[in-house]
């Protein structure tokens, strides 16, 4: 009978609370968007599944051994841990987990050892998160793979489009101000680190967003990653109205002349130029852009094809699986169901809108000075969201004139946007760590 009770106490229904049930529906919703609507499925399928796993009541898959021990509620387990953490045994689970998270690393290590001695272990997703994101490695490896898949040809043929990639990053910083505004007006309480991490959604670049959030605001990582990938998938719906609003029919029909052929050697040297610039000017962007340039150099140099192939296939796929599940682990109910999440979702879409607008307006502004006019529709591609945003530019160009193929022209600002957000990420990490 005791065993039957044990099984019942262990069963999910016994533990299920509203929040977890709701989050499991969110997870199913993400899977629906990914599978049925094609929303960035490579990330949202693992994220959605990880979300469900993280909210399985009583399984503790996304919790550390210490949290699992604290959640057990057995006095003989909680009491020694509370003592170690310098709290009362009856302080409550919230106070105890908070105390654990704020403890010095040495105390955390002791608490972990005590929890394992008591028979508790880290949850599976917690381990995935620690290895993939906590260490910072997964976003970097993804960035290396993205670098190995990126062709800088269109950018090299027309380097001016880098300015469009710069302009679109204004979405990031405007959103930082928005988050600060919400906090100052008392709507939602964001720290400057939170604000910076939320702003990076405007970079429209998944691995960059995850990297910055993991450094500056790990507890918001789930919501930020979901917002970033969801809005990237929604680019075909978010951007066109803004683009139409800000351009005239005459501007949309501007034909751009065919891009010159770029030599292989230019393509080989470009990632090295970029790397050296990063090294000299913004070392805090070196991990992200360093791995990106490394991937691109492997692609272009032509002598390490097998490494480049692996970086683009097996390695990035393996990393994506664990990265997605790890992000999903941050969608546990107690972290996600928070007014902050709503704020993040609202600010995120504002960021995309502002970035798009700034890209288009900057293209129009540049047309005041350059001889060969730029079609401002390619400005919106500066937000990144590779290659979706470039395709949107192309589609609107064809709408205006069925002969007006903008895809290759839009790839320039598109990849420039990736560089731009990585730079913004480096600046924000550098400044915010000096402020806190």
């Amino acid at each position, binding site marked *: 009978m005791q065993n039957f009770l044990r099984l019942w106490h262990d069963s999910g229904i016994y533990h299920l609370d509203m929040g977890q049930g709701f989050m499991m529906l969110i997870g199913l919703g993400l899977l629906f968007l990914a599978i049925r609507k094609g929303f960035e499925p490579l990330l949202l399928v693992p994220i959605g599944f990880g979300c469900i796993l993280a909210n399985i009541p009583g399984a503790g898959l996304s919790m550390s051994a210490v949290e699992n021990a604290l959640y057990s509620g057995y006095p003989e387990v909680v009491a020694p841990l509370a003592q170690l953490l310098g709290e009362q045994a009856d302080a409550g689970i919230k106070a105890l987990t908070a105390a654990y998270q704020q403890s010095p690393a040495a105390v955390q290590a002791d608490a972990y050892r005590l929890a394992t001695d008591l028979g508790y272990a880290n949850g599976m997703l917690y381990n995935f998160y620690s290895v993939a994101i906590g260490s910072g490695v997964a976003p970097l490896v993804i960035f290396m793979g993205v670098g190995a898949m990126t062709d800088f040809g269109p950018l090299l043929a027309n*380097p001016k489009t880098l300015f469009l990639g*710069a302009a679109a*990053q204004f979405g990031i910083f405007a959103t930082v101000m928005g988050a600060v505004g919400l906090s*100052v007006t008392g709507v939602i309480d964001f720290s400057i680190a939170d604000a910076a991490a939320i702003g990076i959604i405007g970079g429209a670049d998944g691995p960059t967003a995850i990297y910055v959030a993991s450094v500056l605001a790990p507890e918001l990582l789930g919501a930020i990653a979901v917002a970033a990938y969801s809005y990237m998938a929604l680019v075909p719906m978010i951007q066109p109205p803004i683009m139409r609003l800000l351009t005239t029919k005459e501007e949309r029909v501007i034909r751009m002349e065919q891009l010159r052929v770029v030599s292989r050697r230019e393509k080989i040297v*470009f990632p090295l130029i970029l790397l050296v610039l990063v090294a000299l000017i913004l070392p805090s962007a070196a991990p992200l852009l360093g791995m990106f340039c490394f991937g691109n150099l492997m692609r272009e140099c032509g002598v390490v*094809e097998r490494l480049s192939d692996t970086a683009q296939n097996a390695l990035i796929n393996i990393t994506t699986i664990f990265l997605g599940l790890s992000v999903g682990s941050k969608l546990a109910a107690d972290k996600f169901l928070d007014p902050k999440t709503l704020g993040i979702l609202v600010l995120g879409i504002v960021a995309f809108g502002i970035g798009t607008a700034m890209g288009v307006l900057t293209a129009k502004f540049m047309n005041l000075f350059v001889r060969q006019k730029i079609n401002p529709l390619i400005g919106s591609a500066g937000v990144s969201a590779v290659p979706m945003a470039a395709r949107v530019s192309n589609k609107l160009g064809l709408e205006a004139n069925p002969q007006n193929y903008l895809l290759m022209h839009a790839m320039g600002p598109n990849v420039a946007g990736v560089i731009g957000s990585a730079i913004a990420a480096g*600046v*924000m990490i550098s400044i915010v760590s000096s402020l806190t």
Partner: protein
Amino acid sequence: MQETLLQQGTDLMIYGMGTVIVFLTLLVIATGVMSRVMLRYFPDPVAIEPKKERRPSAAGDQVEPRIQKVIEEAIRKHRNSHK
């Protein structure tokens, strides 16, 4: 450290956006210089190579386009059906 959150946000925006613009401007300049130097002094050997991934094939480089199309289609099917 004593600044208000608003001040911090403003600083972050100004210095952040400034760095992005300065960096990418320098990159535009460096890229332009690099391209001109490369094209002038270190052009690709043998004109521009068609595509790095196309390795030179031993012999009989030409395959009739229709056959190639058939074969490519067959390969795709073969792969799909054997996955």
